[in-house]
């Protein structure tokens, strides 16, 4: 096991005990703060995923209730969706590089990864905003039908998460710049990376359920 395979448990301070049964049942010394923070944030992310699942359920129930208006087949442009998907997937990768750079105290890798992640996130957002504006301009806004209300709620909520994630990203660049690779800052970088990867997981569900199933099959 390398230090990078342990996920939220990344940064275990007792590597020699890993893999032995004692590592699970030994309560003598508490887990490192990094493990506890990562675990707590993972619980939050799961609650966020549960919230998204309610929006997915709403969308799936309402997908055919177009009230005589346009359906997904008329509205969705899969070329844009493919570019959005590429942006988010690559940004997940560059975010992972930034997390490794932070852990290795490698400033070039950290700042480079974070700036690329930010640019790809902004690229995703600009395409999505363009798509939403185009739909509203042709009279297919969220008030047109139950289908479109559910669509804008689900996809818009994901876009809002990406927006907030981008603000968090800029904050983390500023914090590392001002305070260096301090261990409390590194824990925040770990949480940010988990958040950003989770947004990509939700996007996988969105492009499959909303766009590919809606436009094609």
């Amino acid at each position, binding site marked *: 096991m390398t230090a990078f395979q342990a996920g939220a448990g990344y940064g275990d301070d007792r590597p020699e005990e*890993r893999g032995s049964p004692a590592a699970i049942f030994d309560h003598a010394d508490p887990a490192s703060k990094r493990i506890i923070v990562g*675990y707590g944030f993972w619980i939050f992310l799961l609650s966020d995923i549960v919230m998204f699942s309610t929006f997915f359920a709403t969308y799936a129930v309402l997908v055919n209730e177009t009230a005589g208006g346009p359906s997904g087949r008329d509205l969705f442009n899969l070329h844009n969706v493919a570019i959005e998907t590429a942006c988010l997937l690559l940004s997940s990768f560059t975010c992972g590089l930034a997390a490794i750079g932070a852990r290795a105290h490698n400033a070039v890798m950290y700042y480079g990864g974070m700036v690329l992640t930010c640019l790809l996130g902004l690229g995703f957002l600009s395409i999505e905003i363009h798509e939403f504006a185009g739909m509203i301009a042709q009279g297919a806004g969220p008030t047109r039908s139950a289908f479109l209300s559910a669509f804008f709620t689900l996809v818009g909520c994901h876009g809002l998460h990406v927006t907030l994630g981008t603000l968090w990203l800029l904050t983390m660049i500023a914090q590392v710049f001002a305070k260096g690779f301090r261990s409390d800052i590194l824990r925040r970088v770990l949480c940010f990376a988990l958040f950003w990867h989770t947004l990509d997981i939700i996007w996988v569900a969105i492009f499959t*359920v909303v766009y*590919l199933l809606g*436009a094609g099959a």
Partner: protein
Amino acid sequence: MSSIDDYEPLGGADHAPGDEPARGREVWEGVLGYLIGLALAILLTAVSFFIAGTFLVWRPSIPIALVVLAIAQIGVHLVFFLHITTGPDNANNVLALAFGVLIVFLILVGSLWIMYNLNQNMTPMNMPMG
């Protein structure tokens, strides 16, 4: 710019016991893990987009294929990007994930099942009643 140079790797600054900087080989192994994940995710995404518009396969099978591909890709993301593995130091994370998946499953399947039945049993709007 001096603020960055003060925190060079292994520069002698104080570190928490669990937070030694990773050494060169571990950095490369970490990057390799992300590269493998990225390659698998790109492959699965490309197959998804290809299969959604193709006429090469039996059309009714496409939605099921897309859902399977999406679940596979989510698995790839969990393992290679979020590092949720089956290792003993990951037991808590995996149990939390299992509980989350249970709730998501209940919400999705329960909503679809109930709403489908309500739709079936609703009096049609465009037919005269009685």
